[in-house]
């Protein structure tokens, strides 16, 4: 559909880049922040930064859901695996460093850790192997949380439980506005998180913070268009919430998904690797689903983990304070093959995105 509908059309791209260039002098400095690993991928892969004038900059915030899982929660998953429980997770999660080891290292030492593409795959496995205990390590933002909710509310088998580690995007965006020296002038909001949560959660950004905010899709033209829309707002001195992605994002979001999330989860404060504790930024299973909570079921809780190794600067990369190539370890001690920090592990991590594109 993308090719047929010109979402990657170079002529379109040139046209929009030209319009941005024309507006640039009027707009002045425009520092745009996105919060999505996939947006960073599109921007880097299509070389979009090279199309922008000098005064328009796009930085990457904490948009990688795997990168921000605290080491303590990886430790909890490792503990479960070491107890003989089958731990299932998405592929990326496997190599994220815990305080002592990653799930991959636990697997190498004999634990049963399995990658799944979808939560439902894990449930199917549990049904086929009733003599084993299964846990799904539920990582991800609001795009992924609904699928966890579907399974949690779908009467999973008795040998199934969840280690919930979901996080919410709008609180992270609000945090970035509080980081004084970041000086953000506009937000690109993540299109697929927004497919679920709609536009409403972002309306406080223009209203309270005078921050232009545009919800964008993931084709290169989507992102360029969103940059144009923000630069245009800045040049007008305006601060509005706009939708660049109406083919997928509705004002109210996906009400079915939101309803299921609300029935399965409650919002709590959560720890973000490299950031610390953010209030109202995490999901936890409701009391009514306590039997499905792996932490309660297997009495596993790690309070404190070691999030950032010595020399690692992931905590600066994920809030957009430095670019990957400003980390002294980037592509030296820390590479995709031998990652040190979480940003280099996940396919949505800023460092890995930069590393993989540079080598293509």
């Amino acid at each position, binding site marked *: *559909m993308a090719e047929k*509908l*010109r*979402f990657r059309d170079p002529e*379109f791209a040139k*046209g*929009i880049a*030209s*319009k941005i260039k*024309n507006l640039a002098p009027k707009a002045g400095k425009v520092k745009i922040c996105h919060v999505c690993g996939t947006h960073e991928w599109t921007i880097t892969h299509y070389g979009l930064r090279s199309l922008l004038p000098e005064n328009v900059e796009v930085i990457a915030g904490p948009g990688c859901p795997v990168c921000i899982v605290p080491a303590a929660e990886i430790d909890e998953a490792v503990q479960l695996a070491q107890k003989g429980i089958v731990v299932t997770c*998405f592929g990326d999660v496997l190599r994220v460093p815990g305080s002592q080891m990653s799930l991959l290292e636990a697997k190498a030492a004999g634990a049963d850790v399995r990658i799944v*593409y*979808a*939560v*439902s*795959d894990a449930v199917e496995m549990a049904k086929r192997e009733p003599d084993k205990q299964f846990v799904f390590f539920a990582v*991800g933002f609001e*795009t*992924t949380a*609904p*699928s966890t909710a*579907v399974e949690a509310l779908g009467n999973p088998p008795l040998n199934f439980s969840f280690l919930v580690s979901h996080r919410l995007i709008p609180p992270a965006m609000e945090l970035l506005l509080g980081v004084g020296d970041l000086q953000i002038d506009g937000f690109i909001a993540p299109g*697929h998180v927004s*497919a*679920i949560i709609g536009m409403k959660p972002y309306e406080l950004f223009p209203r309270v913070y005078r921050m232009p905010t545009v919800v964008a899709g993931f084709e290169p*033209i989507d992102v360029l*268009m969103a940059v144009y829309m923000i630069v245009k707002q800045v040049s007008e001195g305006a601060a509005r919430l706009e939708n660049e992605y*109406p*083919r*997928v*994002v509705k004002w109210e979001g*996906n009400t*079915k*998904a939101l309803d*299921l999330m609300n029935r399965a989860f409650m919002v709590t404060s959560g720890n973000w690797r490299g950031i610390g504790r953010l209030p109202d930024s995490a999901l936890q299973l409701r009391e009514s689903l306590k039997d499905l909570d792996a932490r309660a079921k297997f009495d596993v809780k790690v309070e404190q983990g070691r999030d950032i190794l010595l020399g690692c600067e992931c905590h600066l990369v994920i809030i957009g304070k430095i670019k990957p190539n400003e980390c002294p370890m980037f592509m030296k001690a820390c590479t995709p093959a031998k990652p040190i920090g979480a940003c280099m592990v996940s396919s949505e991590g800023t460092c890995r995105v930069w590393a993989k594109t540079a080598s293509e």
Partner: protein
Amino acid sequence: MSVEGTKANVDFGQGVVRDVNITLVEAKVGDYVLVHAGYAIQVIEEKEALETISLWNDILETSQK
């Protein structure tokens, strides 16, 4: 391409076909859906997509260069 209860058979293009859970959407055969980790999270309106392109064409044509 086909629907059975909460599962739909979806063509991802280039020969990739997979079952997708459609609990989160109201989708029918022939619809395009946005899939994330095995679950459809939104129906993509081709009409909206075409309108978006047409709007972008307008934006680029009016004014400038």
